[in-house]
């Protein structure tokens, strides 16, 4: 394997008793990119991430994180990684500052405390609050800070904006983007497709423990179906349009209004439309969410 990848897995397998959580995950995350990891509940996102940190041991397959095998040298991997668990639990007998200082000690005090304060300020987090009194959103902020505070080479974030209010969500995404601009690789799972679409360079979709798609976010969005809304100057016979390959009529409001779904290239449709009296034509790009759902239908 070549070290141009921050994460590389081949045929990763993991089962819990009779439950097969990962059925041969092949994944390559390039150095310096933001990789969005999508999938519904139970698809294997968290299991994959926990294998990367040697928290759980795969039953088969090959795994490299920053060129290292997490099972051979987990400490070396974890030194270079910042991790936000999907379900964050912290020692609740301390306050936020106590937890962050304790975690920093586990890293040998590598974090710059001014940077910790800067992160806390940007996420609007009070460090004096006892952990047991934190709301879900505030706990998530602590989780983000501890993952970012030592400026890791690789960020593994499991649902990083879960529980955050919309304004803080945007700030959290900015922090993630800034980490990437500073040279970090970001691998994050999410259910919120709009945020994946907004910051990810590439997207991987996992379903029932298998990667079903990995693509540049823009390519994934652009290459698939589009919706075309047409308004004609006068009633027309649309039969020739409907006969085109990859065209499906979604809605016909009248003889003059038509909503089509176009799969693949638009060339044939545009040529066919040239012969018709068009008043307006609008194309809608589907959201990543719609593409995502299409993979599951």
């Amino acid at each position, binding site marked *: 394997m070549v070290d141009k990848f921050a994460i590389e897995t081949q045929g990763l397998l993991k089962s*819990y*008793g*009779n*439950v*097969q*959580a990962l059925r041969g995950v092949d994944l390559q995350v390039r150095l310096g990119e933001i990789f969005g990891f999508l999938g519904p*509940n*139970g*698809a*294997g*996102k*968290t*299991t994959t991430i*926990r294998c990367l*940190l040697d*928290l*759980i*041991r795969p039953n088969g397959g090959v795994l490299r994180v920053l060129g290292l095998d997490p099972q051979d040298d*987990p*400490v*070396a991997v*974890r*030194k270079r*990684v910042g*991790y936000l*668990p*999907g*379900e*964050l*639990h*912290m*020692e609740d*007998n301390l306050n936020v500052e106590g937890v962050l200082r*304790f*975690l920093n*000690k*586990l*890293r*040998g005090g590598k974090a710059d405390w001014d940077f910790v304060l800067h992160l806390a300020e940007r996420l609007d987090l009070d460090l004096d609050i006892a952990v047991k009194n934190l709301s879900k959103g505030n706990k998530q902020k602590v989780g983000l800070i*501890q993952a970012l505070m030592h400026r890791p080479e690789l960020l593994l974030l499991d649902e990083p904006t879960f529980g955050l209010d919309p304004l803080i969500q945007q700030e959290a995404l900015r922090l993630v983007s800034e980490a990437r601009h500073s040279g970090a690789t970001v691998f994050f799972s999410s259910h919120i497709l709009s945020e994946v679409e907004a910051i990810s360079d590439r997207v991987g979709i996992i379903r*029932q*423990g298998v990667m079903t798609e990995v693509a540049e976010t823009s390519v994934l969005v652009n290459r698939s179906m589009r919706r075309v809304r047409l308004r004609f100057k006068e009633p027309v016979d649309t039969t020739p349009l409907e006969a085109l390959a990859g065209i499906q009529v979604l809605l016909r409001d009248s003889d003059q209004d038509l909503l089509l779904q176009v799969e693949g290239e638009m060339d044939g449709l545009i040529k066919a439309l040239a012969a018709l009296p068009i008043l307006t034509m609008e194309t809608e790009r589907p959201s990543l969410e719609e593409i995502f759902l299409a993979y599951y239908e």
Partner: protein
Amino acid sequence: MATIYLYTLGRLRGAILGWGIGLALLGGYLIRFYDTLAEQGVELTRMIAAYPKELMAFFGDMTQLFTPAGYLHTEFFSYMPLILGIFIASMAGGLLAGDEEKGTLDLVLSYPISRRRLFVGRVCALISAILAILFIIWLSFLVAVRGTLLEEISLGEMAFPLLSLGGLLAFFGALGLLLSLLLPSQRAATMFTSLLLFSSFFLSGMATIDENLEAYDPYSPFHYYQGGNALNEMNWGWLGILTGLAFLMILLAWWRFERRDIRVAGEGGWRLTFRSRRTPTAVD
């Protein structure tokens, strides 16, 4: 490892002080009664002789009640393994599995800490907690014996019963730790360890009055527990057996911890496996 050790010890601080001081006060209180009891020895011996032997089986040799060793064993050390044993079993069971069930281990082990260092740090903190509790009790004994007939016992001799108790506690602590890494939950580990603790207590007690049980007694950890009788002659071999077995179980627990998955939300638990037979679903 020092960070883990100190943090874990800090977390146990309240329990150490609570149990240590509580039991120290009890021990000191009982020691102050020795002189009074020894004065009434003849009458009390006659009264105790009338008790059913089954009732007395668990409190040592009652004919020795008015010797320093017999008194300390009957009044304090005979039942102390049960009281402290359940506490230690619970503490050991939660040492790693407790944090795993709370979900905090997932975060801690994502830091550059090897499982070995985490394990050693936590186990050292547990051993330190046991020693600290015993040390507090020992200190109270030293203060309480002043001006009593027990004052003739030297500082070192006074430590022997506590060492014997420490060996037994180490055994059941190590068992609790090992079971917590084998069984699906901390609660199950504590329950099984406590069950074995009580079974062993009853087996060794009943073996003193029922010769049919004598053959099984050597398999009971309580057989190797001297308690107050260690004042007469410390059996270092027995202490070695208890601590040796404890060490072996700690090694097994470490071996298991190195190889198992860190669970969250029931992953890898028996319940999940059982459920999956009926409703196969993927795990996120």
